[in-house]
């Protein structure tokens, strides 16, 4: 992995950095004025991309910056979505309570699962996230009376002002932008810096006085919270939920997005999400074997572009060869 762009080091990097801000601003303006020119299909595509981008960015917070092998991030996404769905279909509480409750419940699940996971290192951490995550999936899948089992919950009522694709689009855009800004600020904060330090060298972080378990747990909960936010967006778009949102292959998909865009660059996962969503929708409509294509893309990425598309571009533009960072965690 290359550096995280945390450094205010090379002048080249700095130039590029401000250039990337300009690009982002232009993209944002385009995103704001675009909807009237789009067909519903493309509006839906863009909205889905934004919802997915937030999910990927939240995973990358723990994975890329924290170096934690979070193998089952989709759980918190699913928990967030199911919370909205359950509040709106099983209670008569107002809409906004569902929206607020979802990320908090997702964060709480992250606290619960993370509490056990941060005791472990490396692959054991990853495997426990997988096991506990699948446990949540299994419960959702089987608790038919509450969650509707494998049928899921459909026709979730959302307020009228959120019924049109355009308004959902703008809500997604606003939430994505705000969430990314918050995540970016945190990445650049002492918390973020220390998080990167615990990733690069846990032992040393401990010996300068960092409580790494607590730090990692906090990052884990934050990531879960934002995955929950993304879950809310999902319900706004689809108005339905199903257990597949929490299945482990969904988590693998998010991982691929992070890898595709570049885990060492802040906007990498966002780009990865965009590319993957477009690929799946476009390729998926023309051939039956979308997963084969995805698999081949992933294979080539791992072999030839492990720093991701944005990571690769950043290296080229800043003329800095950072190379890969070796082992993150010991296996045992």
């Amino acid at each position, binding site marked *: 992995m290359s550096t995280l762009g945390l450094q205010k080091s090379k002048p080249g990097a700095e130039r590029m950095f401000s250039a990337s801000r300009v690009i982002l601003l232009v993209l944002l303006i385009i995103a704001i004025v675009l909807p009237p020119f789009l067909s519903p299909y493309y509006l839906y595509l863009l909205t889905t991309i934004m919802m997915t981008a937030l999910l990927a960015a939240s995973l990358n917070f723990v994975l890329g910056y924290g170096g934690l092998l979070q193998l089952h991030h989709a759980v918190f996404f699913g928990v967030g979505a199911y919370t909205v769905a359950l509040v709106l279909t099983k209670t008569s509480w107002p809409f906004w309570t569902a929206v607020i409750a979802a990320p908090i419940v997702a964060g709480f699940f992250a606290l619960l699962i993370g509490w056990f996971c941060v005791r472990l290192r490396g692959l054991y951490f990853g495997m426990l996230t997988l*096991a506990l995550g699948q446990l949540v999936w299994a419960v959702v899948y089987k608790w038919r009376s509450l969650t509707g089992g494998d049928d899921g919950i459909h026709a979730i009522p959302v307020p009228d002002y959120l019924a049109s694709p355009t308004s959902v689009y703008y809500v997604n855009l606003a939430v994505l932008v705000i969430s990314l800004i918050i995540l970016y600020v945190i990445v650049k904060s002492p918390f973020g810096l220390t998080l990167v330090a615990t990733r690069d060298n846990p032992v040393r972080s401990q010996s300068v006085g960092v409580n790494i378990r607590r730090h990692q747990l906090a990052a884990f909960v934050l990531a879960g919270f934002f995955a929950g936010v993304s879950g809310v967006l999902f319900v706004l778009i689809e108005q339905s939920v199903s257990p597949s949102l929490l299945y482990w292959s969904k988590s693998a998909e998010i991982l*691929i997005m992070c890898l595709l865009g570049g885990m060492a660059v802040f906007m990498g996962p966002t780009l990865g999400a965009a590319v993957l969503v477009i690929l799946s929708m476009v390729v998926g409509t023309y051939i039956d074997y979308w997963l*084969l294509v995805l698999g081949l893309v992933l*294979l080539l990425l791992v072999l030839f572009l492990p720093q991701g598309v944005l990571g690769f571009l950043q290296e080229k533009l800043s003329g800095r060869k950072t190379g890969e960072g070796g082992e*993150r965690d010991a296996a045992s």
Partner: protein
Amino acid sequence: MNSAALASQLLIGLSRGMLYFVVAAGLTLVFGVLRVINFAHGSLYMLGAFFSFTFATVLAQGQAGFWLALLLAPLAVALISLLIERGLLRFIYQREHLMQMLLTYSLVLIFGDLVKLIWGSQYQSLSLPGILSGSFTLGGVAIPWYNLFLLVMGPLVALGLWLFLDRTRLGKICRATATDREMVDILGVNSTWVFAAVFALGGWLAGLGGALMAPVVNISLGMDANIIIYAFLIVVVGGLGNIWGALISSLIIGVGEAMGALFMPDWAIVLPYVITGILLILRPSGLLKSVW
């Protein structure tokens, strides 16, 4: 609830556990020696089942087909594994765990669609040879002969693995590699062929698991995703890389699942995860030491 039902369910759980063990042993062996978490292990298992279906129906009619398939399918899977290791895996041993995992995950996606391409997405099924079909009664409860067959096969595989690891040169190198990679390099062992052999053996075990499973389930797409999670749980609970740990946890999970089906059928699917969660919380690094 009478004791006969309990006993028969226990027997079924044990035989299911033995099957899990055959698959999980391959996964844990590969991890122990190569330090690679192989997501594609489930795909290899699925290939084992599909190969066994094809071999059994194409190569021979009737009884012989099953036995021939049981012999050939795992070998075919082992061959494919060898190709994977030589063609892909060996280039990424120096990389992060995450990259290695994602590479094997790409194979999951690719194999999934390839199986769909070759065999289609409908269920296939394979019938048991006469000698193994049917059941016998134990205290008034019917127990399939095939479960008994699995109960014999599991320990046989375990015994074979033990003999291999304990008595052969390659086995000893495997154990040494799992314990201390650098030491093996110092001893001058060319570890690349060890890796290739172990990965092929791991594939063989996955294929054998698939072939053994083929007659008792619907051979279908998606059987890879289900087994791989179980195999992961078993391997982690047993202690990553530890074959005997995998044996113990396979049996725990197999029996736990069977008991769950008996006492709380609605929640049987949740049980393996609950068991795993509890065991991992109690013993975070697995039941047995992660290298043996």
